[in-house]
């Protein structure tokens, strides 16, 4: 470790480092292991082949999300492959004594929603999950890592994994965000600015006035997409907002243990004047409502800009990337993105399917109608979010506007379930990936944007400026 003062990453790393391995990597303790149905069954099979047991079943938590149908969650699923996967997960959890938030628990949801909701995600901890958006949990001041299946096996078997140390880039967002600009815009703008591989080898530490004011849900939205900028890890230092969120959650400490935990958590925060490998500062006022037009999350523009023209760029690489993206997206260079007709509006995913997302949209959607010809679906990220929305009448607002209101799951974010794009449908989506074919159709097209922009597009029938459609003034 460098000399003090220390940043959070270095402190959490030091607390969890076991020893240096022959490769020069570190054997790192993973305090919390989250698993789901897609990337765990092969790992359990490997474990069995090696004759090993789960090292810390009480630090391993499971749920089911990717394959769950969202129109009706009841088993057996009509898709036999999906049904085999949920059965395998249940069996593996039972066999190894792992806590499983199943469909009947009322606590099921996208794994990156469940951890925070249950208070399992805590500051100063290490978290791993066989899912790249594990970076979400960094919002609590944890080192949260997406891992592959062989590493899921490693963590199951040893509660550790081998990892090379990351560099830390501090990203300050100062000042204020403009009206109609959200956490989603912050991260889309950052990825556009720093590049889809700008974060390779880095952990991103987010801070500054905008993050200080952000709720936990907003912090999660940003940390979630760190991986789309190439960063393995993204985090925000724990503060009063973090502790207030965790207080009273099922897995949060109580009584005297709570006070001890808060003191411990606080001590993990980056210290004033600590060193970073790099510091980037941007102004909140410079961040526009952002929309992607291409086939990776870095291909974004302001809602008021025009679609890039390959003739306007000198870089050979960029030119090729624009040409490829435009051909796939069937969009016209130089045309405004605003007004592009959409077929589907999807409000969901681990990026933006939390209570605050639905609440904010409902505020503006009330009394408005989804444009005829647009298929609009709203999918809460967890059963708890679904229940809270029902209690607050938010689901009704969406239904009355013409949205299909669904049950919890990953849904159309990646289409391993019945929710898929068809043909070359264009989808305004609050999710995190716009890769070719991501939403289930090999020719399907995705535009990433904030939840309110998705609602604006649904109402307008085309990509629209939510500030205009809804008269957003702040």
């Amino acid at each position: 470790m460098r000399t003090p003062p220390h940043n959070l990453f270095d402190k959490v790393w030091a607390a969890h480092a076991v020893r240096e391995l022959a490769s020069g990597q570190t054997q790192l303790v993973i305090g919390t292991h989250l698993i789901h149905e897609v990337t765990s069954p092969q790992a359990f099979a490997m474990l069995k082949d090696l004759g090993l047991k789960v090292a810390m079943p009480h630090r391993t938590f499971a749920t089911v999300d990717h394959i769950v149908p969202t129109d009706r969650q009841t088993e057996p699923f009509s898709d036999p492959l999906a049904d085999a996967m949920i059965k395998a997960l249940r069996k593996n959890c039972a066999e190894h004594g792992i806590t499983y938030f199943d469909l009947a628990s009322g606590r099921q949801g996208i794994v990156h929603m469940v951890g925070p909701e249950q208070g399992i995600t805590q500051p100063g901890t290490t978290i791993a999950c066989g899912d790249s958006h594990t970076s979400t949990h960094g919002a609590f001041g944890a080192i949260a890592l997406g891992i592959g299946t062989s590493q899921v096996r490693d963590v199951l078997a040893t509660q550790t994994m081998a990892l090379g140390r990351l560099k830390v880039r501090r990203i300050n967002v100062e000042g204020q965000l403009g009206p109609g600009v959200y956490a989603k815009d912050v991260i889309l703008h950052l990825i556009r600015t720093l590049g889809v591989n700008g974060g390779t080898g880095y952990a991103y530490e987010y801070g500054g006035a905008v993050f200080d004011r952000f709720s936990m849900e907003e912090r999660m939205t940003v940390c979630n997409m760190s991986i789309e900028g190439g960063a393995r890890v993204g985090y925000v230092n724990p503060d009063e907002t973090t502790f207030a969120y965790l207080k009273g959650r099922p897995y949060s400490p109580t009584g005297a243990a709570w006070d001890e935990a808060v003191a411990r958590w606080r001590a993990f925060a980056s210290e004033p004047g600590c060193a970073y490998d790099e510091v980037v500062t941007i102004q909140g006022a410079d961040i526009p409502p952002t929309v992607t037009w291409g086939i990776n999350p870095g291909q974004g523009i302001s809602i008021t800009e025009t679609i890039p023209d390959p003739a306007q760029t000198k870089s050979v690489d960029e030119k090729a990337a624009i040409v490829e993206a435009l051909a796939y997206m069937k969009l016209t260079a130089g045309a405004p993105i605003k007004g592009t007709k959409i077929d589907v509006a999807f409000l969901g995913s681990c990026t933006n399917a939390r209570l605050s997302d639905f609440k904010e949209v409902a505020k503006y959607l009330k009394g408005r109608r989804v444009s005829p010809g647009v298929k609009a679906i709203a999918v809460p990220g967890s059963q708890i979010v679904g229940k809270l929305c029902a209690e607050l009448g938010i689901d009704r607002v969406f239904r009355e506007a013409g949205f299909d209101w669904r049950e919890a799951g990953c849904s159309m974010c990646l289409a391993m379930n019945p929710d898929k794009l068809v043909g070359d449908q264009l989808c305004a989506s609050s999710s995190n990936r716009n890769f070719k074919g991501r939403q289930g159709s090999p020719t399907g097209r995705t535009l990433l944007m904030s939840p309110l922009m998705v609602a604006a597009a649904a109402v307008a029938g085309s990509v629209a400026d939510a500030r205009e459609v809804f008269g957003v003034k702040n």
Partner: protein
Amino acid sequence: MALAKITSITGPGLAVPGNDIDTDRIIPARFLKAITFDGLGEGLFFDARKAVAAAGQVHPLDDARFRGAKILISGANFGCGSSREHAPQAIQKSGFRAVVAESYAEIFFGNSTTIGLACVSADRADIARLTAAVEANPALEVTVDLVAREIGFGGQTAKLTMRDSARDALVHGRWDPIGELLEGAEAVVATTSKLPYLAVPPK
């Protein structure tokens, strides 16, 4: 657990050019609906292959001349996106033993190394030379030599780079860390006992 020492890989090459090729493209999500990695090879670049075929062309993976290729050649930021190990598994199950690309996304690189799939980097100009040579002669034997840090093909050579920790792991036969992690059991207890949140909660 004795693992093979992967010092060099020799075989024909096959190029899938382009930058930012993501793991959704390498193996579309619907092929992940399974509880084993068996049969993943068939899904490799599935949609990209279909799209090329629909355009009346032949994707190299469907081109008989490239059958038996062992070295996959591509561009920058290869394997970005989803952390699915299914991606390197699909590449390996299709017969590839090494990837030569300009650069890699982090998780993909780690996943590949852990299953013994060597991901080496080379300069753009060298990759262009290699691609041209392979396309001119699909039977050409390409050698990725991790020890000499060199790619050899038809009398030409190119420098390869690879993170030392991964290169050493492959060369010394310890690319799968599970054995070493298990050996650390005692040291692990020393660390975990100092982390209060890991204690088993009282019943």
